């Protein structure tokens, strides 16, 4: 049963299985285990990023393609839902329309970019996506009439997902309101999308992608159209990223360039994939959880460390909480060199 749900891709390590189980339980019961606005918010962010990172891993870890436009697809999904809810009214049908349109648009855009760059060289893709993504980010902040520009859009989700909607009294001291429902929409949506990604990478299609990653020339020689598979992977990954963006928009009830399109988020995704482990979907779970938790709680610790060395030249600046990215960058380089398989690869090797 579990094997079927996980598409035959078992954790293959007791420690890994325990960690994954713990993460699943914590996320599933987050509103009850850790009641509090900030903790539930963190849990929802983890859910969304697990899907986003998993979809990126399909490209990077399985397809061997580096893309810098993943936040663009994420943003397309988020803005799709935001625009639909703004203009079509606050119903569930609007959410479906927005998410569907976002996913389709993302897949279509990925198709065009993929056709242009992947037929020549895979590295073109990295450069072209970087250029296109930044152009789109600028465009979104300039078309303020449609997208709200730098301020972003605040919109209303269906009443059933808002804190004002109550469907019961209290359960274990947690108010049964729409915010709780909203969390479970995000959680279940993320779970389904993640299992879908797991299904994809363990299908024959996923195997072909891995073959192409290892040796594209040989894969072509066996008779697989490399371009076809790469473009298909790009489109699929873009669509899933857009759906993750839709979930994020539903949760935040706000979209803006900083929360969905910025280069910082792209760097976060890269770090999550590499630290969790490339080429395994469980890496996405571990990486996203670790990094989101670290961002929310470790940064404070760095501030404390910075104040401890007050008075020493340069050191306080190096340990300043804002210099967090510096250490992540160092960690990133080191993990690409020494642990290319990330946490999951380490655990699986025992």
């Amino acid at each position, binding site marked *: 049963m579990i094997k079927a749900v996980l598409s035959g891709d078992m954790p293959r390590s007791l420690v890994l299985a325990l960690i994954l189980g713990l993460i699943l339980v914590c996320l599933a019961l987050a509103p009850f285990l850790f009641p509090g606005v900030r903790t539930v918010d963190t849990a929802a962010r983890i859910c969304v990023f697990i899907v986003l990172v998993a979809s990126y891993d399909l490209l*990077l870890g399985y397809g*061997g393609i*580096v893309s810098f436009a993943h936040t663009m697809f994420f943003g397309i999904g988020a803005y799709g839902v935001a625009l639909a809810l703004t203009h079509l009214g606050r119903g569930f049908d609007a959410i479906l329309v927005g998410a569907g349109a976002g996913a389709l648009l993302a897949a279509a855009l990925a198709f065009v970019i993929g056709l*242009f*760059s992947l*037929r*020549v*060289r*895979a*590295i*073109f893709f*990295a*450069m*072209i996506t*970087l*250029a*296109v993504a*930044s*152009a789109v980010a*600028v*465009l979104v902040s*300039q*078309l303020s009439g449609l997208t709200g520009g730098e301020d972003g859009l605040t919109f209303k989700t269906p009443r059933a997902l808002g804190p004002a909607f109550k469907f019961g009294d209290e359960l274990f001291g947690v108010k049964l309101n729409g915010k709780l429902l909203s969390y479970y929409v995000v959680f279940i949506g993320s779970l389904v999308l993640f299992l879908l990604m797991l299904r994809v990478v363990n299908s024959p299609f996923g195997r072909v992608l891995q073959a192409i990653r290892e040796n594209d020339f040989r894969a072509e020689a066996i008779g697989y159209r490399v371009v076809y598979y790469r473009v298909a992977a790009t489109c699929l990954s873009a669509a899933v990223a857009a759906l993750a963006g839709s979930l994020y928009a539903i949760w935040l009830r706000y979209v803006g360039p900083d929360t969905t399109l910025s*280069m910082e988020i792209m*760097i976060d995704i*890269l770090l999550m994939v*590499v630290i969790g482990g490339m080429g395994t979907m469980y890496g996405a779970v571990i990486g996203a959880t670790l990094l989101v938790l670290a961002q929310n709680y470790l940064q404070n610790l760095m501030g404390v460390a910075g104040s401890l060395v007050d008075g020493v030249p*340069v050191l306080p*600046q*190096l340990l300043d909480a*804002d*210099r967090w*990215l*510096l250490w*992540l*960058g*160092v960690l*990133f*380089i080191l993990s*690409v*060199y020494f642990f*290319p398989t990330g946490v999951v690869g380490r655990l699986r090797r025992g």
Partner: protein
Amino acid sequence: MSMAPEHAPTMARLSLAQRLAPWMPVLLVPLLVLAGLLAIPNTSSWLTLTVSGLAMGMMIFLMASGLTLVFGLMDVINFGHGAFVSVGAFVGVSVLLLLGGMTGAPSLALNLAAMGLAVIGAMLATGAMGWAFEKVIVEPVYGHHLKQILVTMGGLIVVEQLIIVLWGPEEIYISRPEALKGAITFAGAALEKYRLVAVGLGLVVFAAMRWTLRRTKIGLIVRAGVENGEMVQALGYRLRLVFVGVFIAGSALAGLGGVMWGLYQEVVSAHMGNQAMILIFIVVIIGGLGSVEGCFIGALLVGLMQNYVAFLEPKVALISNIGLMVAILMWRPMGMIPVVKAK
């Protein structure tokens, strides 16, 4: 017995289109300038835009040339190239701020001397940094594109953050040297002096680069290395050393470009390298990865295009470069002047 194949030599001269085809990339620049002349009603604003487009193109070329050469020679794609642009700009601006007395004086000689010192300082700093970057970050991942992209991107993040540690998180505003402020009027068009200097400098660097690559022994080795590295090594040249040299030179050029770019915008920030990378990538792809001439033409096209479109339709400016790239890739999927590798 089979018949001999019919021999029908075509004595006709090649048609004009056929004879022009190999020169198309070079001709694109004047064609774009002409198109600009047709699209922009006012001749004097056309002249101003053309000069600023050329200046912008030259600066992008300075920044991009190292990247394309490094790729051509060693198949190394350096996403951290933008870091050299930022560092160059910061070092150059710091030197200029130190030499406030020289830049403030209204004497062209003193101003140019200060600029020269700033450029030398920036190029030394970025050259040294390029050497370290190559040793620490790039060397362990030769021949592995995916890891190169990831690791050099990580290097970019680290360098960006270190800049913030050393120079603080705020943008630094800098005004150009006194004698390079303002504009001269030529045929009714206002031409900024600084842009003319940038065009001149770009032309000099391009000429020097072309001369080095075409006329010197080291250039010969570099060009041979681009075409077939193994063969060059078999002939007894240590291509690895040549490559390190090219990497350092490319980083120093990016630093030079960074100083010019910083003074052009009159503000430097830690993220400017990352922003410049977008234009650099477009230029390098348009030109054909590994080709210096292609990079030069691509940079001019992008600079001109950006300025013309920004004048005609400001909102489309950034998209126009993407459009240009798409059009060129449809025409020549490997870029305008593809580098042919003997494999």
